[in-house]
């Protein structure tokens, strides 16, 4: 079967713009969470967010694009530039029909939408922007990225809340297996506008704390919800053989993917998250012991944390694998969150270091997980698992492994060594 590897990364996160800034901040444990400044949040029950500082679209985009695009699209376009440059891909690298786009969205360009809703209802329909029809809808990032880079191959957009970021990469791999050479994937969300904010509050899972150091504490005894973030990551997913042929460096392979849904609460049956993880492992031809690190979804609400901790323990055994939630530094970025975790996992593979979970001090009783708290932890890079869940019941999981490593068939002794990640503890 065709192998899909990630050859380019573009990250725009609240704790760092660009891969280098983001990764340095993440390894330092530096958070981008603070009181939201984009609009006056003082009247709302939740006031903290992971906001991207210092992103001026004029630095990255032609002037004519700026009035046509929501902030999340502007950030996505810049990140797509970075990802393709990182991959060393130019317009002529492949036939343009062999390059496509698959992104995830969750809320579309809602800040733009809110502005135009105001215009419609206060000034009248003839004042609504000619760009509104495509600035708000959920397909906008895929469309704009395809135009900006001349990618004329398969195009797709999935919407499955936080899980969508992994589903998009699963879709990218599927299209590579069907013959595309390269798919620009990932996800980016913002909607840091009052309407978007209130919409998130309505889900009932936002932290109400005003203390950035204790508002979002996945797996902690004090867990009380999450903090939203804006941003995400754009990844270049490429046919491994084609990438090798052009001498590209691969960060890692998208080795396994699984997606499930939790309808069990109404209908009975097992928990979907575990099935998603097991499906991703099986798809990768990996055993649980092959996985050297888990990037958890880390919802930050006790019920979800418990379900996730139990899943990890059930699959890997108590405390058997390092688990981390770098999202504690960015907030949960909707469809951008899981692609950023994929990027973190790939950088962890590159550098042999697992980024930390910050602010968490005391893991809630009964969660038998080895959470990487406070400091990054060195590891001998093996396979990594990224998990993500979306509101409503979406679960997705991806297994990444070093590009040269082949898990299916016969894992090497090194991969089977369950202690390899602890060597430097």
């Amino acid at each position, binding site marked *: 079967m065709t192998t899909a590897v990630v050859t380019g990364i573009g990250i725009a996160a609240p704790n760092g713009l660009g891969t280098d800034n983001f990764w340095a901040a993440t390894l330092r444990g530096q958070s981008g969470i603070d009181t939201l400044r984009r609009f006056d949040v003082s009247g709302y029950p939740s006031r903290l967010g992971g906001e991207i500082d210092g992103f001026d679209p004029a630095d990255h985009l032609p002037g004519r694009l700026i009035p046509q695009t929501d902030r999340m699209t502007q950030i996505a376009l810049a990140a797509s530039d970075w990802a393709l440059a990182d991959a060393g891909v130019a317009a002529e690298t492949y036939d343009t029909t062999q390059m496509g786009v698959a992104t995830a969205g969750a809320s579309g360009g809602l800040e733009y939408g809110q502005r135009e809703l105001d215009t419609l209802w206060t000034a009248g329909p003839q004042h609504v922007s000619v760009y509104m029809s495509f600035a708000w809808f959920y397909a906008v990032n895929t469309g704009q990225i395809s135009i900006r880079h001349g990618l*004329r191959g398969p195009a*797709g957009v999935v919407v499955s809340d936080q899980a969508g970021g992994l589903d998009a990469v699963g879709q990218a791999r599927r299209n590579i297996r069907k013959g595309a050479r390269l798919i620009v994937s990932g996800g980016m969300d913002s909607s840091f506008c009052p309407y978007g904010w209130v919409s998130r509050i309505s889900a009932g899972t936002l932290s109400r704390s005003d203390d950035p150091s204790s508002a979002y504490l996945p797996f902690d005894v004090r867990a009380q919800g999450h903090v939203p973030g804006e941003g995400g990551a754009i990844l270049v997913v490429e046919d491994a053989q084609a990438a090798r042929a052009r001498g590209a460096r691969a960060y890692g392979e998208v080795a396994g993917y699984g997606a499930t*849904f939790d309808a069990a609460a109404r209908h009975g049956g097992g928990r*979907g998250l575990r099935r998603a993880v097991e499906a991703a492992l099986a798809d990768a031809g990996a055993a649980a012991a092959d996985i050297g690190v888990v990037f958890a979804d880390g919802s930050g609400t006790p019920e979800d944390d418990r379900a996730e901790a139990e899943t990890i323990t059930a699959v890997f055994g108590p405390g058997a694998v390092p688990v981390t939630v770098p999202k504690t530094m960015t907030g949960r970025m909707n469809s951008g969150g899981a692609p950023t975790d994929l990027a973190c996992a790939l950088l962890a593979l590159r550098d042999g270091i697992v980024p930390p979970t910050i602010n968490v001090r005391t893991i809630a009783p009964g969660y038998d997980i080895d959470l990487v708290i406070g400091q990054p932890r060195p590891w001998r890079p093996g396979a990594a698992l990224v998990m993500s869940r979306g509101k409503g019941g979406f679960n997705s999981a991806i297994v990444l492994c070093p590009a040269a490593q082949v898990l299916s068939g016969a894992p090497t002794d090194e991969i089977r060594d369950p202690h390899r990640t602890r060597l430097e503890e």
Partner: protein
Amino acid sequence: MHSIRSRGGAAVNGRRAVITGLGVVAPGGVGTKAFWQAITSGRTATRLITAFDAAAFRSRIAAEVDFDPAAAELSHREIRRLDRAAQFALVATRETLSDSGLELSRLDPARVGVSIGTAVGCTCKLEAEYLVLSDTGREWLVDHSYTSPHLHDYYMPGSMAAEIAWEVNAQGPVTAVSAGCTSGLDALGHAVDLIREGTVDVMVAGGTEAPISPITVACFDAIKATSPSTDDAAHAMRPFDRTRTGFVLGEGAAVLLVEAEEHARARDARIYAEITGFASRSNAYHMTGLRPDGTELAAAVTAALDESKLPPDAIDYVNAHGTATKQNDRHETAALKKALGEHAYRIPVSSIKSMIGHSLGAIGSIEIAACALAIDQGIVPPTANLTEPDPELDLDYVPLEAREQHLGAVLSVGSGFGGFQSAMVLARPRSRAA
């Protein structure tokens, strides 16, 4: 015509995807039967907007569904909680399940998935809730004390796929697909992929849209894509006609049961058609503009035919995108000629949007339902309102009246904002002995 020829059909891992259930909510009639009767009789459902007072708008016409949620057997809670688009999808889902004869309790829920297309999500509810929270657009800092407990579901339209998954106990892959106006085709294409790769046996897949709200109407007003022919609403959408003036916004849903062929055969299901191929491409050109030569749409058609292992001349009918904008109808005609060659001139090409309007992310699925019925019934639905042919557009667009014709394989195409171009090929099911 090319009805008796060897049919193709792509089988990955030997698995083929077939349509075994139909559920349609469309302007002109709720339910598949009413829909099929309406479009084969050439009856148009476009009219002056009744959903809200549209006096201030450039285009005041829509193809609305006369939808009574209580009569459609939605519960009080479903009616209160769900956006109109989600209500359509739920009603269509219940119909498709009943039509398919599938007994959910006999399935492994992990082998059942959901893929629902939508372009603009829960727009009606998003706008309605916004008016309350913002005091009719006057307060930028909206007042959260008026928030609906279901607002997050409207904000993130994957909730509609989740709703269907809860309904049918799908515990496999579930997602919404939102690629603008090709969403309905793309959602079905995704379903076919999942079946072929062996991840699932059954997909509840389709598209839903309820965009007839002031903000969506204003969006299309702003770019003059919709027809302003207010004085004759019933004939406002005239695809391929010399006097065409743009599309009429529509609404509705189609949810199909897409099933692995072996699974369908094992339970002796009625098979409407096989989905033999699907492809999507980007024109990478413009968010709303189309290159007149139709290269990328043609490429999508060719790729869908390749996947179907069918030559262009196996296609007996094309369900056109046919949005009646000046540029679309030209673009599409060029693309069909490019992909099908001379054969394009020999087969019927029709746009049912002339009757039921353009329901954005739903229409692709509604059109696939129409294609499945066309194969099953041997009837080509017409293009309504096509009375003055455009000399530039020289294919057989099936004006005004349906035709009886045996159909072996049919093609449906879609094109949308963002540059998305999609094509899907359906074929008559293999005989059991095959």
